[in-house]
C-alpha cells in the first residue's frame, strides 16, 4: 500500500468520524445559526428608519415654527419631526400627558412629560432660534436674503484626511467576522487534533495502528482529515453567510468581498497547517484526555493572544501591534486579512509573512512527527516534549 493511499485511508476515517460526531454537528449548527443571525438580522430589524417625534405648536409664531421644525430636522437622516397645530397650551399639556405628543412648543416654552431629550431639544431650540431671530431682524428692518445671510452663514466645508466610505465600514465588518470565524476554526479544529491523538493513546488503538503504519503517515492522515472538515465547514459558513446577506439585502456587499473571503480561507489553510502540528504535540505528550487541559494550555494561550492582537490591529491596521503580529506565525493568519483589507500593508510584508509561516509549518511538522513517534507508545502518564524526542530515537523499528 503506497504512502499516499495510506494517508488517504487514515484521513478518510478521520473525516467520517468527525462528521458523524455529535460534537461536530452541534458546533456546526451553532456556528451556522450565528452567521445567519449576523447576516440577516440587520436587514430584518433594520434601524427601523428614522426616529419620529410628534411635536405640537401653539400660540403666536406657531405657523413659523410649524414650518421651520421639519426643515431643521431634515439635516439629520436619523430624525424626523411630525408637526401639528394645537389650540392652546392646555390642549398641548393634555396631549403630552396622554402620550400623543412628545412635546408641545409655544409662548416661549416647551411642554414635555419628563424632560426634553437632547436630540429633540436641539431641533426645537434651533427652530425657535431661527424663527425668533428672523422676527427680531424683521423688526430691525432686515428681511429676506439679508436676514437669511445673517442667520445662516456658509456652512463649514468638511475636509476629511482619510474619507471613510460606507463601503469601507462594511468591508471592515466583514473582515472582523472573517477573523472571528478563522480564530474559532483554528482553535476548535486544532483542539480536535490533540484530542484525536490522545484518544488513540488512551484506548490503545495506537498500538494496533503503529503495527501497521509508520507514525508520520498516521499523523499526516489525521491532520489532513480534520483539516479537510475544518476547511469545508469554514467555506460553507462563509458562502452561506455571504449568500444570506446578499439575498436579504441587509448588508451591501462591497466589491472586495470575494477576495477578502478567499484570503480568510487561504489563511485558514496555512494557519491550520501550523497550529495542527503543535496541537498534535500537545496530544502526543498526554496519555489521557484529562491531561490535555494542561498540555494544551500554552498553545491555547498563544491562540487567544493572537486573536487579541488581531482585534487590536483591526482598530489600527497600520499600527505597531499589527506590524509585529504580521511576522509572528501564530498571529499572522488572523492579522494579515485585516491589514490587507484595510490597505495598510506593503507587498513585501505579505511576502515575508507568508515565508515565515511556511518555514514555521515545516519546522512544526518535523517536530510533531518526532514527538508523535516518541510519545505514541508512552501510554502511562504525561511526558515532557524533550522526553518524547529522546524516546523517538528508540521507538519505531525502521523495517
Amino acid at each position, binding site marked *: 500500500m503506497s504512502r499516499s493511499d495510506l494517508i488517504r485511508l487514515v484521513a478518510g*476515517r478521520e473525516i467520517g468520524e468527525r462528521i458523524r460526531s455529535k460534537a461536530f454537528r452541534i458546533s456546526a449548527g451553532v456556528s451556522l445559526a450565528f452567521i445567519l443571525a449576523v447576516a440577516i438580522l440587520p436587514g430584518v430589524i433594520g434601524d427601523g428608519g428614522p426616529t419620529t417625534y410628534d411635536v405640537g405648536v401653539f400660540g403666536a409664531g406657531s405657523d413659523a415654527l410649524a414650518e421651520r421644525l421639519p426643515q431643521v430636522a431634515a439635516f439629520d437622516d436619523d430624525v424626523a419631526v411630525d408637526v401639528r397645530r394645537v389650540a392652546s397650551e392646555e390642549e398641548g399639556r393634555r396631549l403630552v400627558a396622554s402620550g400623543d405628543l412628545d412635546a408641545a412648543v409655544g409662548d416661549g416654552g416647551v411642554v414635555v412629560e419628563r424632560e426634553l431629550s437632547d436630540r429633540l431639544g436641539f431641533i426645537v431650540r434651533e427652530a425657535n432660534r431661527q424663527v425668533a431671530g428672523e422676527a427680531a431682524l424683521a423688526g430691525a428692518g432686515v428681511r429676506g436674503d439679508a436676514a437669511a445671510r445673517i442667520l445662516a452663514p456658509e456652512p463649514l466645508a468638511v475636509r476629511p484626511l482619510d474619507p471613510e466610505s460606507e463601503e469601507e465600514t462594511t468591508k471592515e465588518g466583514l473582515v472582523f467576522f472573517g477573523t472571528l470565524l478563522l480564530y474559532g476554526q483554528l482553535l476548535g479544529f486544532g483542539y480536535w487534533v490533540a484530542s484525536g491523538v490522545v484518544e488513540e493513546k488512551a484506548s*490503545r*488503538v495506537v*498500538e494496533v*495502528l*503503529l*503495527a501497521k*503504519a509508520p507514525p508520520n503517515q498516521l499523523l499526516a492522515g489525521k491532520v489532513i482529515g480534520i483539516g479537510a472538515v475544518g476547511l469545508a465547514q469554514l467555506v460553507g459558513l462563509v458562502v452561506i453567510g455571504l449568500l444570506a446577506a446578499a439575498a436579504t439585502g441587509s448588508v451591501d456587499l462591497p466589491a472586495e468581498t470575494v477576495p477578502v473571503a478567499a484570503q480568510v480561507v487561504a489563511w485558514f489553510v496555512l494557519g491550520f497547517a501550523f497550529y495542527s502540528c503543535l496541537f498534535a504535540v500537545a496530544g502526543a505528550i498526554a496519555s489521557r484526555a484529562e491531561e490535555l487541559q494542561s498540555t494544551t494550555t500554552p498553545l491555547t494561550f498563544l491562540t487567544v493572544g493572537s486573536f487579541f492582537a488581531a482585534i487590536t490591529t483591526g482598530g489600527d491596521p497600520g499600527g505597531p501591534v499589527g506590524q509585529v503580529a504580521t511576522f509572528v506565525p501564530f498571529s499572522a493568519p488572523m492579522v494579515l486579512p485585516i491589514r490587507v483589507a484595510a490597505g495598510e500593508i506593503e507587498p513585501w510584508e505579505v511576502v515575508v509573512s507568508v515565508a515565515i509561516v511556511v518555514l514555521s509549518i515545516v519546522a512544526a511538522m518535523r517536530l510533531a512527527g518526532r514527538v508523535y513517534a516518541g510519545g505514541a507508545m508512552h501510554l502511562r502518564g504525561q511526558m515532557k516534549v524533550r522526553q518524547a524526542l529522546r524516546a523517538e530515537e*528508540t521507538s519505531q523499528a525502521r523495517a
Partner: protein
Amino acid sequence: MLELVTLSKRYGDVVALDGLSMTVGAGRIHGFVGRNGAGKTTAMRVTLGLARADAGEVRWKGRPVMAADRRRFGYMPEERGLYPRMTALHQIVYFARLSGMGAGEARSAAMAVLESMGIAERSGEPVERLSLGNQQRCQLAAALVTSPELLVLDEPFSGLDPVGVDNLAGVLQAQVDGGTAVVFSSHQLELVERLSDEVTIIDQGRVVASGPVGEVRRSRGADQLKVALEDGGTAWADELPDATVVARFGDEVVLELSPGGDDQAVLDAARRAGRVRSFRREAPSLTELFREVVAS
C-alpha cells in the same frame, strides 16, 4: 517461523530484554510466561515493530521481518485497542484495509470474521456500548480479519470467565489447526499448561526455561507422587526409604522419588497405612516450576 534472536533492549536504566531468544513454529501454540515487568510485553512490541531493539533481530520465515509482514500479523494488545465510538464493522474494515487489503476484500473478510465471533448482529453499534465480552470478541476479530499467519496476544485471557476462556481457547485451537503460529502471554499457568504446545518462561528480560510443555515441566525435578488416603492420614509418608515429602495439601501428600526409587513401593506403603483414595504420578506443574525458577 517466528524467531526472536538475542533481543536486547533498555529503557534508560531499566533492562527490558537481555539477550532473549525464542521460536514460535507454524501450527503451534506458544505460551509466554513471566512476572509483571519481566519483558513479555516488550518482546511482543519488538516483534510487531512498536519498539526497536537495541540488539538482536526478529526473523520471519527465515529472513528478517519486514513491515509488509508485520501489517498482516494479528495483534491483540493488553488493553482494548479499539476506537470507542466507531462501530465494530467499520473499524475492523479499517484495520483490514490498513493491513493492505482492498476495500471489497476487507469488507467481506470483516463480515465473515464478525459472524464467526458471533457478534455480527451487534456490529453496527459503537464498540463502547458493547459488553466487555463482546468488546474482547471484537478485538479478536480485528486480529483475525487478515487471516494472519502469526497471532500475538498479550494477556488475552485476563478478565474472562471460564466460558469465555473456553471459547477463546477454541478459537486459538482452530487457528492453530489451520497452520497459524500463536504466541500468547498469561499469568494463569494452569491455562498455559493446558493449551500450549510450547512454553517460554522469562524473568528480567532473559529466558529461564523454554520448550515443549512436558519437557519443561520435567526439566527441573523428578516426577512427583501425589497420594491421599481415605482417612486423611499422612504420617505413613514420613519414614519412607526412597521418597521424601515435599508438600502437604490437606489430606494429600506430595512426595519426590529418590533416583532409582520405585513408585509401586510407595503405593504399597500407602495401602499398608489405609485405603488409598487417590494416587497420581505427575511431572511438577508449571506453577510450581515457575515459582521455583523465578525465585532462584
